[in-house]
């Protein structure tokens, strides 16, 4: 008779451990996990009622931490309280968690929801439900499906960012050569668009590319594949890292092969290890998205839609064809110090600094 009780106890323990382990894994949003059931008495802001503005990201990642900073900064600048501007990310990309979060806030009657759909098709029905409930729906980071209820997409155009990477590498390789591409997915839209934009830019330039290497979003595999590709192609002249960790993976492989400066490397994003790569002259350029701006503008747009009307808000924010392009920064050894200064001006905390580093070392 004792055993069933033990099993029950064990199951409960496991369940509670799993729950406690998972709950804080969405650390970016303590507010969201509290699941506020009470209907918030919307404080009036300038005569118009703002209940809650929700921004839903994709995963726990430095990139989304910066989006969150932008979201919070916008909330502060607009005079909204901390419970009025909510940022949520699931621990890993999780379409279902995004849907459930949206449903929670639809039920609570949010003012607007800005979402980065992990799967635009799967999210569209719940976005529609939100729009029908009178909630302003916008998208950030990842564009919605054609004809979506999301009126505005705020983010980088991945295709043109990829083209920017291609143009940059083309400039580094005036004589062309073989170029390797590393990416984390063969199916995710951002990976495909960045690659396609890159290929478009180098078209007819004497640069030939190897088959893109797919590491399935695993840093160790990315390094493994970069090692293999470099040893397989002794004449490799350049490399393109599509996801944030691909640049550092190429950088390590290039260093190990003793080809620093010989293989020109262009990467994506501006994580600490990428910046280290630039400082060590292994990475010649990186394409940095302005994710902080995506968060900031998402909140600002929804706020203006609610307070000034949709038409005026879209005109004020410079929406073109339903898109606010936040653009990209091309960071090189020459521009790194400017980039640092700009980030500091926005209060974006950096894990790195350029003290004692001389950009002319990478000439």
């Amino acid at each position, binding site marked *: 008779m004792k055993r069933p009780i033990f099993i029950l106890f064990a199951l409960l323990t496991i369940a509670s451990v799993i729950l406690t*382990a998972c709950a804080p894994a969405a650390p970016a949003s303590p507010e969201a996990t509290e699941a506020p059931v009470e209907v918030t008495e919307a404080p009036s802001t300038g005569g118009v009622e703002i209940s809650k503005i929700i921004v839903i990201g994709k995963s726990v990642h430095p990139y989304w931490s910066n989006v969150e900073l932008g979201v919070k900064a916008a909330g502060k600048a607009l005079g909204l309280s901390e419970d009025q501007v909510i940022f949520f990310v699931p621990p890993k990309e999780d379409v279902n968690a995004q849907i459930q979060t949206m449903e929670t806030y639809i039920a609570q009657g949010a003012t607007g929801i800005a979402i980065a759909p992990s799967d635009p098709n799967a999210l569209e029905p719940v976005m529609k439900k939100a729009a029908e409930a009178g909630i302003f729906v916008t998208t950030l980071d990842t564009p919605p499906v054609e004809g979506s209820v999301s009126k505005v997409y705020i983010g980088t155009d991945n295709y043109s960012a990829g083209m920017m990477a291609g143009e940059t590498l083309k400039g580094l390789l005036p004589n062309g050569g073989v170029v390797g591409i590393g990416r984390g997915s063969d199916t995710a839209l951002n990976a495909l668009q960045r690659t396609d934009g890159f290929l478009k830019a180098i078209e007819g330039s004497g640069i030939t590319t190897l088959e893109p290497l*797919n590491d399935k979003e695993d840093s160790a595999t990315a390094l493994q594949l970069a090692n293999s590709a470099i040893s397989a192609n002794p004449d490799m002249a350049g490399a393109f890292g599509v996801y944030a960790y691909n640049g550092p993976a190429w950088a390590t492989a290039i260093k190990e092969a003793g080809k620093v400066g010989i293989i020109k490397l262009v990467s994506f994003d501006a994580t600490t290890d990428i910046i280290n790569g630039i400082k060590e002259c292994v990475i010649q350029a990186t394409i940095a998205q302005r994710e902080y701006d995506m968060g900031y503008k998402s909140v600002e747009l929804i706020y203006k839609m609610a307070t000034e009307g949709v038409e005026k808000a879209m005109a004020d924010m410079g929406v073109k064809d339903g898109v606010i392009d936040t653009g990209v920064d091309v960071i090189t050894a020459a521009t790194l110090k400017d980039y640092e200064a700009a980030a500091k001006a926005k209060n974006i905390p950096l894990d790195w600094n350029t003290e004692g580093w001389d950009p002319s070392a990478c000439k």
Partner: protein
Amino acid sequence: MAVESKSNQKSRKSFAQFRELNVLVAFLLLFVFFYSQSPQVFLKPANLAVIMRFIACFGMLSIGEVLIIITGGIDLSVGSLTALTGVLVATLMLKGFAGIPPIGMIPAIIIVLCIGTLFGLWHGFFVTKMRIPPFIITLGTWLIAKGLAALITRGYPIVYPSESPFLVLGQGSFLGIPISFIILVIFASIVSIILNRMRLGYRIYAVGGNAEASRLSGVNVDRVKFFCYATSGFMAATTGILLASRLGQGTPTVGSAYELWAIAGAVIGGTSLLGGEGTILGAILGAAIVGTMQNGMVLLNVSSYLQDVVLGAVLVIAVVYDTLRRLRK
């Protein structure tokens, strides 16, 4: 659990050696094939080092997996544990933990190895004392470790300075052989000796062949299982530390689906998921087959869309071949 008891140790051993011969032949054929396809590149020391590093990573996980699968269990947690332990070693060395300042390399490694082993003992406890299916309890850890790794880092990689001596473990080599591979050979030898030469090894096979019979003949089944799960946790921690060193950072973005590769390596190497059968050498050869194929397909510039199809097909062929051979016996 397999009903047939492998009471005759001698027949088990010759049977096992024959098994490995198959895997070895398959591996050599593959090797020759890729060599013939790109002779000037494939055998270059740098390229062989790439393959050896792959084998070091997945072979290490396969060692623990084989032990557990022999006893009729499974460990789904090793991939996530790899990420968590990698993050932990970097945190302990570079950032400090819960107000404790950063500590040196050796203590950090020892602490993390202990944590990995503790996770293994935790699995052992639930599997033996609570009779929780190993699939479930290790699935729980799979989630917990993944979540903790993300929680500790908040997604940011913890980056080592490029002159850190810690990086030698994963990036260095001795006489052209990666140090991580040397560590694998040492651990594999130790576990092989335990399996083939020591009483504990015979007991592990006996428990997998027929747990009840071994219990009745005086084997402490629980203790045997504790050993296997603890070893698997220890191996996962070793892999996590080596990968953190290899990448120069502790990051939660490693380890996804590594448990499946470790299990695949074990199965290709002739380990039976029914328990009672399997060898360390076989599992490492299995990992070598997967590693060689992955490297070879990049050398041949095979589209990554196709690579998974080929790897999956190899897994199916290996298992079908093994089953047919068993039926013939």
